[in-house]
């Protein structure tokens, strides 16, 4: 998956671009920490999310974690495949493991990290 345009939050979510119609998911680091994903609780299309706000819950064998929106906007689509195949989040977190599609209401914050900076951050934890 070409992640070159992606932006990353320090809470380990990614957004596929800084503006317009984008996808959101969790990072490779996050899926590795979580272990096998069992359930992903996601909002309905039409819901509004705001940057830094909780948009769902991800439950793995180990624990449940809140999901935080990296940017603000309206949910236009939800990855229906995750209900039957939550392991997509583990196996392809940047591609088929995407969670929601957003129409951003404003450009993503400049504080989000580019990939190299995020990888450095994640490896320092």
């Amino acid at each position, binding site marked *: 998956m070409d992640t070159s345009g992606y932006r990353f939050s320090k809470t380990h979510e990614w957004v596929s671009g800084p503006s317009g119609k984008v996808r959101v998911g969790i990072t490779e680091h996050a899926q590795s920490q979580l272990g096998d994903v*069992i359930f992903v609780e996601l909002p309905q299309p039409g819901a509004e999310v705001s940057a830094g706000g909780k948009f769902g819950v991800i439950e793995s064998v180990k624990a449940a974690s809140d999901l935080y929106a990296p940017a603000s906007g309206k949910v236009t689509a939800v990855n229906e495949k995750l209900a039957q195949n939550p392991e997509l989040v583990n196996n392809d977190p940047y591609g088929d493991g995407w969670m929601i599609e957003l129409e951003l209401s404003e450009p993503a914050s400049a504080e989000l990290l580019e990939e190299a900076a995020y990888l450095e951050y994640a490896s320092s934890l």
Partner: protein
Amino acid sequence: MSPDPQRTPLYDRHVEAGAQMVEFGGWSMPLQYTSMREEHLAVRNDCGVFDVSHMGEVHLTGPGALEALERAVTNRVADLAPGQARYTLICDEAGGIIDDALVYRPAEDIFTVVVNAGPRPKDVAHLREVIGGACDMVDITDQVALVAVQGPRALELLQPMASIELAPIGYYHFAEGELNGLKATFSRTGYTGEDGFELFVDSENAVAVWDAVVSAGARPCGLGARDTLRLEAGMRLSGQDIDETTNPLEAGLGWAVKLDKGDFVGREVLLRVKADGPARAFIGLLPEGRAIARHGNAITDAGAPAGEVTSGTYGFTVGRAVATGYVDAGHRQSESYQVVVRDQPVNAQRVPLPFYRRPRD
């Protein structure tokens, strides 16, 4: 400051294989290699292999061994035939569970007690105190490695490498032989609910045995899958489901307690518990929907506090969350309860254990 975790002879193999390592019971062990789901399903459908060398082995020998051991454990051991093993509890004077264990009897005056890694120091102290000088007692944990080969294909996978016929070894029985020329005790036991063999080998041969089993097609599996497998199979985890604050009768393990066999540590208290009825009951629960109940979650009965979850996870074979825990005697008759998961009560049906039983031919 706690000491560095101990390493089994197979540590390097786990790290080389890319396993995520965790500390468990004072040992550095593989949590998972690829995915708990894949490892769990490999054991249910094919063949998996676990390094369980962190478990403890205590060797008792001499004419006084039988009588001494009978006083130290709750189950009867006098009628164990050579080549037979039996599950038992090790209790303290208050009837609390120090550990659960398997007692092996290779010969009339020889016993090996296999205990869990974390409680091993307490087990050894208890055994020393009860046994005293009645027989020779040696903790042989460091000389022994234990490799558990589990799954419907375990026997088929091991037989070509084994010097003895494995099929005639019955469940909870064991036999000495060789695996690829290396001395091994083949024990038809396990902690997964599947068929399989636990191989006791000398520590210096552990790597060779592991490599042989993996090359033959067994999938390395970690403690994560071990936990989801054993919970589906309704097995207790020492230190989590059973400990010094629980007695065997309330834990549903009365079948491993022989109150009529003569005196043993904890017997007096357990006789009273039996007469009065246990104060709690260990139950199985199936939470509804998408909630996974976990250790420490409250159990309520029509909203009233009733108990607590001791183990909970997602059962990859049953395809839903599974949980076990204790409810107070006054609430033991209900058919359904609620488990409080992240402050939300979730309905949970009470079911008899195990959650999963392997298909029998």
